[in-house]
């Protein structure tokens, strides 16, 4: 019963949003060139179907490559940073500094190094997505209860054993929560890179479409990105619930 309620409300609101958009465009006679109606955008997706599929597959692939890279590096760095206060203090300023650089700004550098195309897009996606993963994993490790540490140390536990038996499982809820954020970030990264320096992908498609003043196609690109983003978010939300069920059922979420 409750499950059903959870689906009904968001669906209603989402449909309502598009219906309002459609009605507003028609009533106020908004030019397609300014803001196309949802129905026009869907028609455009239908019309350019095969092209859109090709480019979205490219974007999806680069995003996932960058994302997987971000998961691997973020997990390793997070464990390193969280396991040792010395590394934590040492590496943090650089990490925060790197993270505050707008990623658009590094695309030209990546193009100089690797040329136009897939590689800069993958790396841009990676560079945005790995940070939340690293920070969350490190936080999960650092926030272990001191009493629990005492219990383990008094049993003669080594650092690696504490990390393996308690630290890593304990940081999993933090890790999975960060994946939901990171996947969205990865899409931003790859699309930004594609709009600047690429000849394929949704970002590229939108740039060409806007150069031809094909505004419905530009919006079609946005739609497709949003759909992929929602899909992947849901995927990781379900995965999170499955794997770290113990952190979500109790009324006290492990913090």
């Amino acid at each position, binding site marked *: 019963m409750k499950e059903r309620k959870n689906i009904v409300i968001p669906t209603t609101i989402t449909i309502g949003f598009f219906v309002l958009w459609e009605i507003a465009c028609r009533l106020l006679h908004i030019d397609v060139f300014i803001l196309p109606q949802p129905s026009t955008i869907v028609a455009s997706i239908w019309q350019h179907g095969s092209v859109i599929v090709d480019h979205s597959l490219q974007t999806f692939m680069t995003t996932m490559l960058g994302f997987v890279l971000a998961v691997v590096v973020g997990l390793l760095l997070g464990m390193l940073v969280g396991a040792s206060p010395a590394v934590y203090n040492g590496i943090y300023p650089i990490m925060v500094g790197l993270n505050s650089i707008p990623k658009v700004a590094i695309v030209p550098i990546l193009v100089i190094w690797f040329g136009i195309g897939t590689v800069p897009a993958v790396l841009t996606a990676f560079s945005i997505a790995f940070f939340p993963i690293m920070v969350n994993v490190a936080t999960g490790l650092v926030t272990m209860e001191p009493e629990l540490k005492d219990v383990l140390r008094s049993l003669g536990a080594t650092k690696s054993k504490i990390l393996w038996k308690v630290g890593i499982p304990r940081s999993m809820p933090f890790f999975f929560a960060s994946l939901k954020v990171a996947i969205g970030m990865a899409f931003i990264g790859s699309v930004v890179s594609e709009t600047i320096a690429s000849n394929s992908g949704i970002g590229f498609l939108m740039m060409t479409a806007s150069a031809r003043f094909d505004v419905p196609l530009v919006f079609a690109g946005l739609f497709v990105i949003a759909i992929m983003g929602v899909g992947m978010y849901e995927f990781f939300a379900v995965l999170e619930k499955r794997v770290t069920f113990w952190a979500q059922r109790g*009324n006290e979420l492990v913090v």
Partner: protein
Amino acid sequence: MEDAQGGTSDFISIRGIDVVYGEGENEVLAVTEASLTIREGEFVAVVGPSGCGKSSLLKVVSGLHPVRKGSVKVRGEEVVRPVKICGMAFQNATLLPWRTALDNVLLSLEISEDYARDFNRKRREYREMAMELLSIVGLVDFASKFPWELSGGMQQRVSLSRALIHQPRLLLLDEPFGALDAFTREDLWAVLQRLWLELRPTVILVTHDLREAVYLADTVYVFSPRPGRVLSRTEIDIPRPRNLETTFETDFHERVNSLRAQISRPAAV
């Protein structure tokens, strides 16, 4: 109790220790000039006002915190690193939420060197040991439940079992029942007493509940307000097993009251 080497055969011997936390201006003297001697298998309770360094005592005995001055010996050996023969439980049960009650108890065996070596080979035997403990604390039917499915008192029973499964010679308890309601607490006194009578570890129980101390302990030490020092040592010779009836007897009350009197006038020392 002099032995051949001229030392003492006491299980734990604490001589004139100072314990300090923090550094520089934030330095706090938690315990000063404290001495106590504990026999093997003795049940000791340490009582005193909050912040009097009772918990510090547990930390130095277990080797998790160094002393500034004096000496701590366990089985005649100076404590310089975690002693590995102790089990610990705290006010917060600190169970691992991704493990069932049974697996939480088994954690100690997965970590303690003596057991971890054979963990995979002896898994079945270890499970039986854990189930046996869970049945002593009355949780057999809850072995496969996760911590969030257990009440506070049940979680504390699991925590006690985890502290005892590796058959430690020394059990350190830091206000383990402090967060429980009065009825649950009294239930758990009986549980702890039963565990102690069966396994006979040496116990140091830190508590601010004087009834709890008298119910459970052979010997009660009263600590002064910070910096904590030993004000008195009282032997409780009420026969065991003690039960709730015991707590209504005059004898019991007199002891609790005399301890209370010592705590309420620390200036008399």
